[in-house]
């Protein structure tokens, strides 16, 4: 049982750190604000969640485990909301997503429909 817990927690921690690093690479390599925001929002949330699950599998005390569960729930709730708020603020301030030229009219109609939320 011990070795199963060790291996699975190590796997979760490794996957979590790999996801966070790939989110960082995404920020550097993606061309546009919105694609970068998407990269960080998805990989950051899942990476932090996997690291927390890996730590949960290692914890020995019930209090530590409960605190990690709380932190996981709050991260899953807050992190996608902050990505949403950031992208919405950018759209509200007029930063247009970078699209190819012949999709420009489609993007205009899409923008007026999606600015309700």
């Amino acid at each position, binding site marked *: 049982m011990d070795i199963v817990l060790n291996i699975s927690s190590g796997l979760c921690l490794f996957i979590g750190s790999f996801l966070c690093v790939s989110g960082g690479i995404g920020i550097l390599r993606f061309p546009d604000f919105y694609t970068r925001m998407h990269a960080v929002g998805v990989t950051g949330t899942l990476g932090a969640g996997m690291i927390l699950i890996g730590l949960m599998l290692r914890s020995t005390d019930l209090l530590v485990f409960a605190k990690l569960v709380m932190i996981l729930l*709050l991260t899953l*709730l*807050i992190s996608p*909301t902050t990505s*949403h*708020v950031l992208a919405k603020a950018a759209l509200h301030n007029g930063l247009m997503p970078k699209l190819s030229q012949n999709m420009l009219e489609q993007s205009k109609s899409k923008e007026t429909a999606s600015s*309700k*939320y």
Partner: protein
Amino acid sequence: MIDIVLLTLLLVVAIAIIRMKDLFAVVMLSGIYGLLSASFFVAMDAVDVAFTEAAVGAGISTLLMLVVITMTGRNENTTRHKPFPALVLVVITGSLLIYGTLDMPYFGSADAPVHSHVAPRYINDSMQEIGIPNIVTSILASYRAFDTFGELVVIFTAGIGVLALLSSVRRPIDGDKIVCINYSMHEQHLVVRIVTKMLIPFILLFALYVQFHGDFGPGGGFQAGVIFAAAIILYAMLFGLSTARIVINQPFIQLIAATGVLLYGSVGLVSLLNGGNFFDYNFLSNDPLSGQHLGILLIELGVGCTVASVMIIIFFNFADYRERQQSHENEQNQESS
């Protein structure tokens, strides 16, 4: 290893703050600087300080700086002249200071006067004399209560300064207008509003937990006050300043700010009246240990009240001033057009 990485990142962020001209990016970088400092403090095992730095430096002060930027403009003015005499003066003064530190003992050495004078007494005798597990709180609230009183009065003075400079007589807005504002924004910010409504009770509860848990773990009045104020500021940002003013109205908050300082000072006076020194908690009750517990509880409560209300006062007044500026500009634009 982690210290070197964190310090290098701090240095890089500091150089970026100096060189950038866009003030919005500078404010964000200073928030990152606060978070890196908090991580550095955790790496040095100073968890209380890290908590306060994360709450204040990475949270509230970034927010207040953003509010200031809405008033001053986003770009830094370019300077025309290069002040070489100032650079020479700074280099000379800096090298004299570094030369002065060569005489000091090594950082963290056990026989430095700082670590051999009062620190052993605090570490050895804190549990018998005061009886709470967290030595940081016992030093802050009992051994050095007078210094903490000074810090609290400084925070209160900052709140009074902001009130003196930025507040004015408000005309009461009737209830219909507030309902209209609330309803018109309802569709636009649906996701954030729902998530915030779920989270604000937990943030307030966490602030209370930090306030009363300062005896046993990292926490205390300052951090709790900042977290409480952050929850109220979040509500004000999403639901409008006028709605937030109905929830927390200004005279009540000013009263709470003054009451915190008064409570702190009164604890000292009551110990004087009971026969001890100023802020000597042994005389607050029959038993010295329970007197210490009571004294620490009361002064932390005073600190929490004042810090929370001063942060709320500062934010509300800055935001209100900005709203008035914007409504004046709108009126002027309408008159001229």
